[in-house]
């Protein structure tokens, strides 16, 4: 048993980190969009799918690097157009409606992908073919390194963007206090557009880099969104860094759980999530207070009835 863990656990962790990077990028996209527009973008995973599909498509005509760039650019344009048609006109609408609109967008993306590329999975060759590395007892493929590397690079660039650039600061201002931002001349709708384009870019990169590992299918989007939502929400839908860390951790938990018992993979992650959320709330003593309160309320109502 211990033997198995020594030999298998590291591999689980590696595989978890790789998937976790994708979840992290999805989560960051979700957090950015939510911060600026308070919308939970159900179509975030679809950006990943589009990035993957488009890269595979362009790679048939172009060398790999330009293909990836082209795929990202096209996805960003799609994201911008979606924002312009669906979100911008209904910026003030209720939250639920907006979420439903992004869900509709996801359905549209999915069916268009089905029409264009068919139901079967598509493959993309590894970025740099070659033998995988052996680190300790774990096998790390070159593409895995690409995934981790690209994720790290994107996160660093993102931080620089937010902290150093004017546009990034404007975004943060908008996230912090939309009214105040408006007062100094920042247009929330425009910032919303920027945040969407940013999220689309992140998703597209994630898709391009993960396609050689997991293959691209037209329905991969929704699952990724769900998995990205978990770390995003755990990070309070507020902190991009928290989302990244959460995403990677979530990927690892998933992989380890799958290793322990494969049926658990989908569930354990969710169970962990619920447990964390609930424990967080419990620390404020709400549940125990409620139970005590039930007793007291019953007693009080007796008294109150006696008084009236």
């Amino acid at each position, binding site marked *: 048993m211990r033997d198995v863990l020594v030999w298998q656990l590291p591999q689980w962790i590696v595989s978890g980190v790789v998937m976790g990077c994708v979840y992290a990028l999805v989560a960051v996209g979700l957090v950015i969009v939510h911060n600026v527009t308070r919308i939970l973008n159900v179509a975030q995973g679809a950006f990943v799918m589009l990035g993957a599909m488009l890269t595979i498509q362009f790679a048939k005509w172009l060398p790999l690097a330009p293909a990836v760039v082209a795929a990202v650019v096209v996805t960003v344009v799609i994201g911008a157009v979606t924002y312009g048609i669906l979100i911008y006109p209904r910026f003030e609408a209720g939250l639920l*409606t907006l979420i439903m*609109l992004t869900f509709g967008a996801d*359905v549209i993306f999915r*069916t268009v992908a089905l029409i264009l590329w068919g139901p079967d999975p598509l493959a993309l060759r590894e970025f740099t073919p070659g033998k995988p590395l052996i680190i300790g007892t774990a096998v790390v493929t070159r593409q895995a390194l690409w995934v981790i590397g690209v994720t790290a690079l994107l996160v660093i660039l993102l931080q620089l963007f937010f902290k150093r650039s004017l546009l990034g600061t404007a975004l943060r201002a908008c996230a912090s206090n939309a009214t105040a931002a408006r007062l100094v001349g920042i247009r929330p709708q425009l910032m919303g557009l920027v945040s969407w384009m940013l999220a689309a870019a992140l998703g597209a990169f994630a898709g391009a880099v993960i396609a050689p590992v997991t293959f691209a299918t037209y329905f991969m989007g929704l699952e990724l969104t769900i998995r990205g939502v978990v770390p995003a929400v755990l990070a309070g839908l507020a902190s991009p860094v928290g989302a990244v860390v959460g995403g990677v951790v979530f990927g690892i938990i998933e992989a380890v759980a799958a290793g322990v018992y494969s049926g658990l993979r989908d569930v354990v992650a969710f169970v962990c999530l619920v447990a964390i*959320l*609930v424990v967080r709330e419990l620390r404020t003593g709400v549940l125990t207070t409620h139970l*005590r309160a039930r007793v007291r309320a019953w007693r009080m109502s007796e008294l109150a009835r006696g*008084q009236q």
Partner: protein
Amino acid sequence: MSGRVDLGRVLRADREILTVLGAAVFALVAILLLGGAGAYAVTILNVVLLRALAATGVVLLTGYCGQLSLGQGAFAAIGAYISAILATQYGLSPWLTIPLACIAAGVAAWVVGFPLLQLRGHYLALGTLALAAIVYQLSVELRGITGGASGITSIPSLTLFGRELGSPWAYSWIIGLVFVLGMYVAGRFAFGRMGRLAQAVREDETAAEAIGISPFGVKNVSFVSGAVLAGVSGALYVHWVRFLDPVPFGLQYSIEVLTMAVFGGIGSVWGGLLGAITLTVLTEALRYVTGVASAEYQALAFGVVFVAVLMLWPRGLAGIADVWSARGRTSDRRGGVPNVSSEGTAEAEVGIGGGALIADHRVTGPIRLQHGDELVVVQRLHCRFGGVKALEDVNLVVRAGEILAVIGPNGAGKTTLFNVIAGAIKPTAGAVTVLGRDIRGLRPYEVARLGVARTFQNVRLFTEMTCVENVLAALEAHDGYGMIRGLVLPVRARQREDAAVDEAHRLLAVVGLAEFAHFRAGDLPLAKQRALELARALARRPTLLLMDEPASGLNEAERDELAALIRSLNASGVTILLIEHAVDFVMALADRVVVLSRGMKIAEGTPLEVRNDRHVIEAYLGEAA
């Protein structure tokens, strides 16, 4: 009013009856009409009604109570599996297993609600999503019980007098009946006490707690109601299709049902039915139009139409009616027809309200205390947030029958003090008793039920609800029939609710808002909003009223009226604790004044004493004006 009952007027006015009647008429007409049109049409009807049930559950939970849940699929699955397992492995009759399945779904929701409903907003959505995923996985894994991915086959259908009710048409009668029952539940919820409490929780949980509503309790009831409706939908499904596997009740189901509710109008009891009809018929119709060879295009067209409809009508199909109604939505049963006779209503001027209160002892509760008794005792109160000391070693006694003002510069801790007394904040150290009871472990709504009411610095009304509903929420917070009793004894429940409505109108009249009864609270100007907030606070016949800067934003004349109102309230027995910045206003009004600065009490005494206190002048008042 004449003694004769005007049936037309009653029907027009009573939305609850309308809901049940409408559902019954729809079901009857649809079944009879479509029955002649063939099995296909009836099958569509069955699918529509089943989905409508679950979608109506979403309307109650998400539309009325504001809790975004993605867990309907889980409860439909529970209902389906319990009914299927009981019928196949234990040989029970479906007539028995279906109700049992509903109960099972309700119990599951009640249990799961304890941890889940602690969460809010996106967290709750995620938690319920997790629930759906877990239930799905369990139904796949627990092969021995659920048949795993291969499912359960040969589930018996309902039989009546030995005849199998298997044909779609026969089954439609059963589904129709259950649908009408479901709409009865929905109507009772939406237009009765629970609906108002749920909406209050949705609008502003803090304010709801302040008027004595237990948010958790209300959420729980809503959650269970939604779950029961989903459960019955699932149970009926299996005895119709007679085969069950995990696939129909995955995440897809929760999203579908939520979509229908949003589409149909999540704020209306009819949203579920409208959404189910539209989406089901739309999908089927698209088959016709786009032709059989392009299923992918059907799906695309569906997505486009869905998005387009949401863009055009963000409030859903039922929301279209809103455009045409002159006034805002009213959700009390009678749709705006008060039952009070025109004589005897307190004539009040437009404005905060006059001195009509003086004689109206119904406003306050029975005075159990003697004037001067200790009402609130605060001892060595410390309140710390992180590194910030909001309150430091504060000692205070509020005596019954007095008007006590708390003043001080910004950041002094005045609102914090209020929050502690109201139970919204737990003190770091020290003791606080209200009416002799230690309140430190109590939730705000429990403190409220003790007889403490409050108004807020930034008016916290239930903006989407009407004025009447705002007051009703307070009146019905603790009194009234619970959901189950309300379903079993509807007549008595309605009587109590009617009485509450009358009382609400009376209270509105007292503060001079009688003619704004059916206006949306959010549409009122500030002065009237404060009056409404006051009426709501008074509804519970409080012994202690905490008012947080009631005069801010009011002009001179309005302040005078407010002062008069406060005095008359006090005269009728309400102890008033008041935070204010308008010093002259306070000095003229208060019996005693307490001055806080930087979390510490720096002075206490009569207005005159305090005004001339050296420390107070330094810290706050500046040189005497």
